């Protein structure tokens, strides 16, 4: 009969898989688990209240918002666009790589430039298109589709694996507060340090993989032309 305790876990898995309302899933799972697990209503409210208050550090993002919006208002995104714009005469693969490095460094400081809507579309895409056209080539839609996918991929990889380097980010805080009731006390700075090798590897993998993939795709869609042009440019 112990299996009934897993009802809450089942609710979480099935609920998220069915894309039900996330907060509804979590609250239902909490109520069901508390009831079948013998905590009762009092135990539920007490555990919920105690842990939520103990985990208030996770609300630090609200304090950070005190400046995030104003940074954007004061031209942070424009500055980022100007910075990446310094990458001139580069192939799309190199542009994606340069963006990966920039996004990775700023992710470690919890600074973002508006994601796909705010940065990839208005800044990175025109740069890649310009790069193709500057070689005297027409935009191939399938090639461009892949470049968009790669730019989004670089955006995600750099953000996921480098934001964990920010001491006080949601990931580290959640791990800290998940381990605490299990009896393991860990410091945020150590959690961030543990991710350094992973972050470096992630950025390198992203850059190298997309660079190689771009070269391959360029060859596929433009034949040998693009290779020749690239060689001439280097001369």
């Amino acid at each position: 009969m112990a299996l009934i305790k897993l009802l809450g876990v089942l609710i979480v898995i099935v609920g998220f898989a069915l894309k039900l309302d996330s907060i509804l899933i979590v609250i239902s799972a909490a109520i069901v688990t508390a009831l079948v697990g013998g905590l009762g209503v009092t135990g539920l409210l007490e555990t919920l209240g105690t842990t939520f208050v103990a985990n208030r550090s996770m609300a630090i993002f609200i304090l950070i918002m005190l400046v995030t919006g104003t940074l954007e208002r004061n031209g942070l995104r424009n500055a980022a666009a100007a910075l990446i714009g310094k990458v001139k005469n580069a192939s799309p693969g190199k542009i994606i790589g340069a963006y990966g490095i920039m996004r990775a460094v700023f992710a470690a400081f919890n600074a973002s430039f508006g994601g796909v809507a705010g940065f990839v579309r208005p800044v990175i895409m025109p740069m890649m298109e310009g790069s193709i056209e500057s070689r005297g080539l027409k935009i191939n839609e399938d090639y461009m589709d892949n470049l968009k996918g790669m730019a989004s991929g670089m955006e995600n990889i750099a953000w996921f694996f480098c934001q964990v380097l920010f001491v006080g980010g949601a990931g580290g805080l959640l791990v800290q507060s998940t381990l605490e009731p299990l009896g393991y006390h860990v410091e945020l700075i150590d959690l961030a340090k543990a991710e350094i090798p992973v972050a470096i590897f992630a950025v390198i993998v992203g850059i190298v993989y997309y660079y190689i993939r771009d070269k391959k795709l360029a060859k596929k869609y433009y034949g040998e032309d693009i290779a020749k042009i690239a060689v001439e440019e280097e001369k």
Partner: protein
Amino acid sequence: MSFFTSADVTTGQKLLEIIYIVIGLITLYTGIKNATDKENPYRVGTAVFWCTLGVVLAFGRWIPPMVDGALIIIMTIPAILHKVGVGKTANPTEEYSKSVFDKIGMKIFLPALSIGICAVGFAIFLPQLGAMVGIGAGIIISIILLIVFNPDNKPAVFLTDSERLLSQVGPLSMLPMLLASLGAIFTAAGVGDVIAGLVGKVIPQGNVNVGIIVFAIAMALFTVIMGNGFAAITVITVGIGAPFVLAYGADPVIIGMVALTCGYCGTLSTPMAANFNIVPVAMLEMKDKFGVIKNQLVPAALLLAFQIAYMIIAK
């Protein structure tokens, strides 16, 4: 008040409590602003959500735990009913940002980086205050720099901008905190022991390396199913990570943290994580619905393999 004058409480704790009060007040402001905002379609629901949250964040320490718990439940009701909305927001115009950038230039990176620098600096050099207080200090520096750079940045600008962002992210921003509480409820109800009993029938107990591999793959797999690494980590750490890996003396720092980023490999591979993998397809007008995921599968697999090896070596 006795809390702040007590000698038993460290300065770090006192400062942290002040930070929570400030966070709570920003949240309360968000609730009150929306309560009086005629452009918000759900004034009551929005106000209930942010105001109860603000009270718990600012004063939760002095409220009995049961009342805190009840307030959290009340807070989630308008969120579940989708009665938390966004009111009038004053997004900065493209022209304004451009004109300020022309004045400030690349210096704008300084206030953006100061928060992270202070967080690390405090954690290393002032551990008695800690990273969280460091973030608070970084924000103060950031605000001062922004005011110096551009006199338009009056205190009200910071407050309205934070309200704008908080309203835009909405109740979902509370998901990590609610998941952390759910994890604690799982632990209190003994869910971990039950999962451990089940998994123990399949994988040999006592072999830490096998435990690590199962933990990492389970994190990725469950994130693929749920589309949310944060949801996965609370369930899988309690059920697999703790009983099969940490119980045998593996380093909770490395194992606990890297497991989360193993989950992120799942995030890269699943249409369930629509925000990251499906929304960009629409925003970039791509033809292939899975165009983002297809370009992420190889890095995700490499990263998972690397992290498993890293956990086994560094445990």
